[in-house]
């Protein structure tokens, strides 16, 4: 019912990302007994930024967030908040607030008292707090629910109360621990917009923990992709998607083809790679790959063209093995000697004359593929 009536911001200002560093993690590690949860990570989060920590479960993203909040002490390293070293400052004296995964609404207080709680801790009287609480309730569109208890609210409503409670103190940064994880799909999409609007509106730094790559990509200014306690890549959503730093990042975000190959020739800034019986050209990158090295070639399905009409940089012959209709597109799977390649083709442009086991030409452009050392293949996330 009320989920549909969402906060609408008519007057969205430009994002206020600045160059000023708000939160800095320097060589931070966290060890639990014999398990390394976070392994020597460095982060530099800018003021006003929507920064996401993205990774599969158990990658250390929540632990990192809890260390910033002060709920967990780092085993090594330093944490700076607004230029001050807060490594040893307890959570209750840090100027950051958290929206917890299951909201952690106090069950013995109604909504109004829940939002008053952080103000009460700052010895602000109820009367003084009232207008601020009113404003927060309005911000999250929950003004009519001030006297409700947690168990009388839906998941989405609890989520918004948790948000209001964390924001009422106007913290330097808001930490969000998978806040949309427990909501159903449609509500999650709607809440993404709400969160993003509020963040832009208030200009507060958001640090957002999620395992949902779509969520991270659509909402963030920058994303840190984490794997087993380390940060594999920090960059804009565009960088993360189009220039993944590792096969792990490449496989974790979106769909990706991986093909084994061997470098047979080195040119000025290109490499000739042999995949199956074909020779293709690849761009050199930060990995120092030499002639004779085994490599892993990665390319997004939407960048692999089937029966291209234009001349592409790389073209190979492949056997068509499968076409899957997926609504707005078709997924076309083809086989070459050294593996499978899938392509995604918009539904309306699929050439329906394709027959199974037909030998067809597929191709891609040099800048759309990336190569990695073969040793990194083990980090590919395979959900199959």
């Amino acid at each position, binding site marked *: 019912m009320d989920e549909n009536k969402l906060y609408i911001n008519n007057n969205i200002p430009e994002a206020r990302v600045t160059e000023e560093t708000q939160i800095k993690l320097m060589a931070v590690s966290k060890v639990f007994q014999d398990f390394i949860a976070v392994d020597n990570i460095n982060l530099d989060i800018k003021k006003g930024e929507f920064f996401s920590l993205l990774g599969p479960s158990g990658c250390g993203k929540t632990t990192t967030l809890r260390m910033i*909040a*002060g*709920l967990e002490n780092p085993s090594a390293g330093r944490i700076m908040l607004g230029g001050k070293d807060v490594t040893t400052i*307890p*959570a*209750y*004296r840090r100027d*950051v*607030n*958290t929206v*917890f*995964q*299951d909201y*952690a609404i*106090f*069950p*013995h207080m*109604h909504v109004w008292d829940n939002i008053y*709680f*952080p103000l*009460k*801790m*700052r010895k602000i009287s109820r009367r003084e707090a009232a207008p601020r609480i009113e404003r927060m309730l309005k911000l999250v569109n929950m003004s009519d629910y001030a006297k409700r*208890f*947690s*168990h*009388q609210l839906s998941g989405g409503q609890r989520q918004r109360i948790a948000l209001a*409670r*964390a924001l009422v*103190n106007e913290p330097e940064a808001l930490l969000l621990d998978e806040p949309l994880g427990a909501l159903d799909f449609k509500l999650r999409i709607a809440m993404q917009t709400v969160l993003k609007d509020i963040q832009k509106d208030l200009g507060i730094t958001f640090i957002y923990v999620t395992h949902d790559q779509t969520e991270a990509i659509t909402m963030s200014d920058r994303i840190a992709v984490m794997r087993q306690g380390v940060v594999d890549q920090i960059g804009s959503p565009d960088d993360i998607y189009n220039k993944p730093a590792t096969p792990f990042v490449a496989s974790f975000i979106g769909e990706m083809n991986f093909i084994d190959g061997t470098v047979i020739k080195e040119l000025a800034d290109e490499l000739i790679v042999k995949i199956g019986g074909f020779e293709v050209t690849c761009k050199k990158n930060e990995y120092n790959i030499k002639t004779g090295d085994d490599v892993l070639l990665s390319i997004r399905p939407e960048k692999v063209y089937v029966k291209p009409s234009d001349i592409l940089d790389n073209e190979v012959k492949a056997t068509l093995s499968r076409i899957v209709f997926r609504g707005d597109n078709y997924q076309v799977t083809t086989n070459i000697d050294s593996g499978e390649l899938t392509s995604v083709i918009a539904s309306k442009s699929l050439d329906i004359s394709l027959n199974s086991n037909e030998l067809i030409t597929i191709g891609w452009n040099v800048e759309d593929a990336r190569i990695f050392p073969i040793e990194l293949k083990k980090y590919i996330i395979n959900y199959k």
Partner: protein
Amino acid sequence: MALTKNLAKQKLKEKKQKSFIAGIPITVWLFIIVLVPVFLMFVMSFRQKSGYEILNVFTISNYLEFFRNDTFWRLLLKSFRMAFMVSISAIITGYPLAYFVSRRLRRFRNLFYMLIITPLWVSYLVRIIAWRTILGNRGLINTALLNLGIIKEPLSIFLYNQASVVLTLTYIAIPFVFIPLYTALEKIPNNLIDAARDLGASEARTFINVIFPLSLPGLVTGFMLSFIIALGDYIIPAQLGGNAGIMYGNVVWAQFGGAFNWPFGAALGFILFFIAAVVLVIAQIFGSKEGIFAE
């Protein structure tokens, strides 16, 4: 559509019938064990003793006697006061214990839990006698004080007074306070504590504003249990109370024993039963705050 609806209705009906049948044994059991004796006692309280006979008459003279003779209601008041003191002291001792074991201990939590409830495995009488040997003239305290040279003669102030009764009843009540408090405290989700700290509450303020209010249902249950135990007890006052420590329970017990006045004993018992029930209902209303862990 209508068919499935009917089917669902029938299923629900069957389910209701099933749960009704399943409920029969417990109802019969409750009826025999609890309701019938209480009812028989209620009937008894309106009869009359004459010599060594209980007459089959209906009279409210037993109840009138309670109000006419101030000994009884004064004793009842005193017993309430003592039971209240027992509950309060059991909570003062039991709360920190329950808090420490449920929220601070990790490895030895179960061991401590077992140790604290171990006294429940020992006979009630044995534990009372144990306190006599601690408090008595040749008891632990006196022997220790004598050996230390603090006193020359054994002190008799430890035994046969109200304090010794309250002390021993408190000891008896601690496990009954500890168990519900432990359960309530252990149930508090850690993320609420994290949220409180995150929102600016120090450890002390987290306790006052979050942990304590959320432990209230356990506190009330513990209070009620220890209150009932203390209010109705007659063995501890008889063993350790002397004249000063006598409680209402002793008088009720005496009516069924030496005085052989069952109707009057039943009336006295029923008065206690009624007042205690009122007190407990009030405590229940006060203690069951809406919203706590309701999912």
